[in-house]
C-alpha cells in the first residue's frame, strides 16, 4: 500500500468513528444551550459555554448523593464478590469431589436465568425477611449490595475456577509442607497469582453495577438511596420538555464513565474480551 492510499484510508476510518460518536456530540453541545437556541439549531456549537444548566441539573438530580450511592454500592459489592468468589472458586477446583462438581454446575447453570424470572419472587422473599427476621433488605444500600453479591457470584466463581485450573498445585503443596494453613496458602500464594482474573471481574462488575437499573429500581424506593441510573430516570421523567436541562443531566452521568474508560482503557478492553471468550 502506498502512503497516499494509507493516509486516505486512515482519514476515512477516523471520519467513520467521529460520525459514530455524533450522538455524544449532540448531547454535549445541547447541554450548554438555552431553550430557544436549542430549538433554533440542534447541530450547531453553543454560543456560550455557561455551566448554568449543569449546576441546575446537578441540584435537581441530587447528583452528588446519587454518585456516592453508586460508588458505595459498586465498590463494596465488588470487594465482597472478589473475596468470596476467589475463595470458593479455588476451593472447588482443588477439592475435586462430587460436591464441588455439583456446586460448580449449579453456578454455571444459573447464569442462564434471566433476571425477570427472579425479580418478583426475590422481592417477596426479601420482603418476608424484612418482616419476619427484621433484617432491612429492602430500600437499603446494604440489601442491594447483598443481592449484587448473589447475582455476581456465578460469573466470578466461573472465571476464578477456570484460572485456578491453569496454575500448578506444587507451590501450594510446598507451602503446606512448610506449615502454612489453607488461609495462609490462599491469601499469600494463590490470591496474588489470580490478579488477571481479579481485574477482569472488577471491570465486568463495574460496567454491570454502575449501569444496573432494574434491580435497584425494584429494591430502592426512597429518593435518598437512588443510584445514578435511578436518579437519571426520575430526572428525565420530570424534565423531558426541557431538553437542554435533560441533556446537561445526561452529560453529567456520561462524564464519569468516559473518564474511567480513558484511564483504564487497556484493562477494560482486555477484561471485556476475557469475560466474553470464556
Amino acid at each position, binding site marked *: 500500500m502506498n502512503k497516499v492510499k494509507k493516509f486516505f484510508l486512515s482519514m476515512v*476510518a*477516523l471520519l467513520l*468513528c*467521529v460520525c*459514530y*460518536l455524533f*450522538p*455524544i456530540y*449532540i*448531547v454535549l453541545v445541547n447541554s450548554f444551550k438555552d431553550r430557544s437556541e436549542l430549538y433554533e439549531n*440542534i447541530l450547531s456549537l453553543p454560543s456560550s459555554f455557561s455551566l448554568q444548566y449543569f449546576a441546575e441539573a446537578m441540584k435537581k438530580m441530587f447528583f452528588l448523593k446519587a454518585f456516592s450511592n453508586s460508588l458505595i454500592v459498586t465498590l463494596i459489592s465488588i470487594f465482597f464478590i472478589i473475596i*468470596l*468468589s476467589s*475463595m*470458593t472458586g479455588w*476451593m*472447588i477446583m482443588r*477439592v475435586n469431589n462430587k460436591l464441588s462438581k455439583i*456446586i460448580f454446575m*449449579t*453456578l454455571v447453570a*444459573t447464569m*442462564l*436465568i*434471566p433476571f*425477570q*424470572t*427472579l*425479580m*418478583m*419472587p*426475590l422481592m*417477596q*422473599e426479601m420482603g418476608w425477611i424484612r418482616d419476619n427476621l427484621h433484617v432491612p433488605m429492602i430500600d437499603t444500600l446494604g440489601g442491594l449490595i*447483598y443481592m449484587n*453479591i*448473589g*447475582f455476581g*457470584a*456465578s460469573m466470578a466463581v466461573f472465571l476464578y475456577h477456570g484460572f485456578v485450573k491453569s496454575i500448578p498445585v506444587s507451590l501450594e503443596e510446598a507451602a503446606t509442607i512448610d506449615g502454612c494453613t489453607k488461609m495462609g496458602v490462599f491469601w499469600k500464594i494463590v490470591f496474588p497469582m489470580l490478579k488477571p482474573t481479579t481485574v477482569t471481574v472488577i471491570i465486568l462488575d463495574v*460496567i454491570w453495577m*454502575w*449501569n444496573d*437499573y*432494574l434491580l435497584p429500581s425494584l429494591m430502592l424506593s426512597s429518593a435518598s438511596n437512588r443510584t445514578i*441510573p435511578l436518579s*437519571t*430516570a426520575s430526572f*428525565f421523567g420530570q424534565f423531558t420538555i426541557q431538553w437542554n436541562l*435533560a441533556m446537561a443531566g*445526561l452529560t453529567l*452521568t*456520561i462524564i464519569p464513565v*468516559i473518564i474511567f474508560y*480513558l484511564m483504564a482503557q487497556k484493562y*477494560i*478492553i482486555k477484561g*471485556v*474480551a476475557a469475560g466474553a*471468550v470464556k
Partner: protein
Amino acid sequence: MVLDFEQYRQMKGAYIKMKKAKNAGWYTLFTLPLLFIFTTVVIIPFFIGIGYSFFSWDGLPLNPKIFVGLDNYVKLFADMKFINSTVHTVTFTLLAIVLINIFGLSFALIVTTKLKVRNIARTMLFMPYLIGGLILGYIWKFILGDAFAMIGEQTGLTGIFFNWLLNPHSALIALVVVTTWQMAGYIMIIYITGIQAIPEEVVEAASVDGAGFWQTLFRVKFPLIMPSFTICLFMTLSSCFKIFDVNLSLTKGGPYNSTEMFAMNIYNEIFSRNNYGYGQAKAIVFLVIVAAITMVQVTITKKKEVEM
C-alpha cells in the same frame, strides 16, 4: 517412647480423621458464605418463582393466592399481548443480530489493519458500550424523537427526519439502531481477538497464491474465526432477547405497545397489571426459551468450527 503396631494404627486413624474434619472445616469456611448468599438471592427465588406460576394472585399480601394449576400457562397461548410481544422480540432480535454482527465485524477488520489510527478508532468505537442501556436510550430518545423532527422541519427532508418514536415500524427500527450502536463495539472486541489469532503465515500464503482481498476474507479469515462467530451470535442473541433497559427508556413499549418486548411485557404484567402469578408463568416460559436458544446455538455452531 516405643509404640506397638496397634497403637500406631489407632493414632494414624485418628490423625487422618482429624485431618479430614479439618479439611471439611476449611472447605465450609471457604465456600459457605458465598453459597449462602447465592442460595438466598438466586436459588430460593427460582423455586418460589416456579411455585408462584401455578397461582392466581394480585400481589397484595392480604388477598388470597388461589391455586390454578397449569391455567396460567394455558392462558399464555391466547394472550394477544404476549404473542405480539413475542413477534416484536423475534423481529427485533433477528434485525439486531444481523446489524450488530455486520458492524462489529467490519469495525474489527478496520481496527486490525496496519493503519496508524487503529487504536484511536478502537477506543472510540467501543465507548458506547460503557454507557448503560438506560442512559443510551435517553440520549437517542432526544435524537430520534424531537431532534429528528426539528431537523426535518428545518431542512425539509421529512423522509428521513421525522419523529421515529411515534410510528410503530420506525420505533422498532429505532430500537434496533440504538442496540446496534451499543453492542457493535462490544462485539468488535470479540472479533478482534479472533482475527488476531489468525497466524500471519496463513494470510501471507493466501496472498502468495494470488488470493485477493475478498477471497482472503471469505475463504481464509472467516472460516478461521468461526469460534468468534459462535461467541458473538450467542452473546447478541441472548442479550437482544433479554433487552429491557433501552426498551424502557427509549420507547416504554409504545407507540400502541408496538415495541413491547418480552422482558417488558413480563415486567408490566407483574408490576403494572398486578397479575403476579400469571406474570411469573410468563417469566418461566421466558427462561425456558432463553435456555433453549442458548443450548441449540452452542451445539449448532460448535460443529461448524474449523480445526486448525
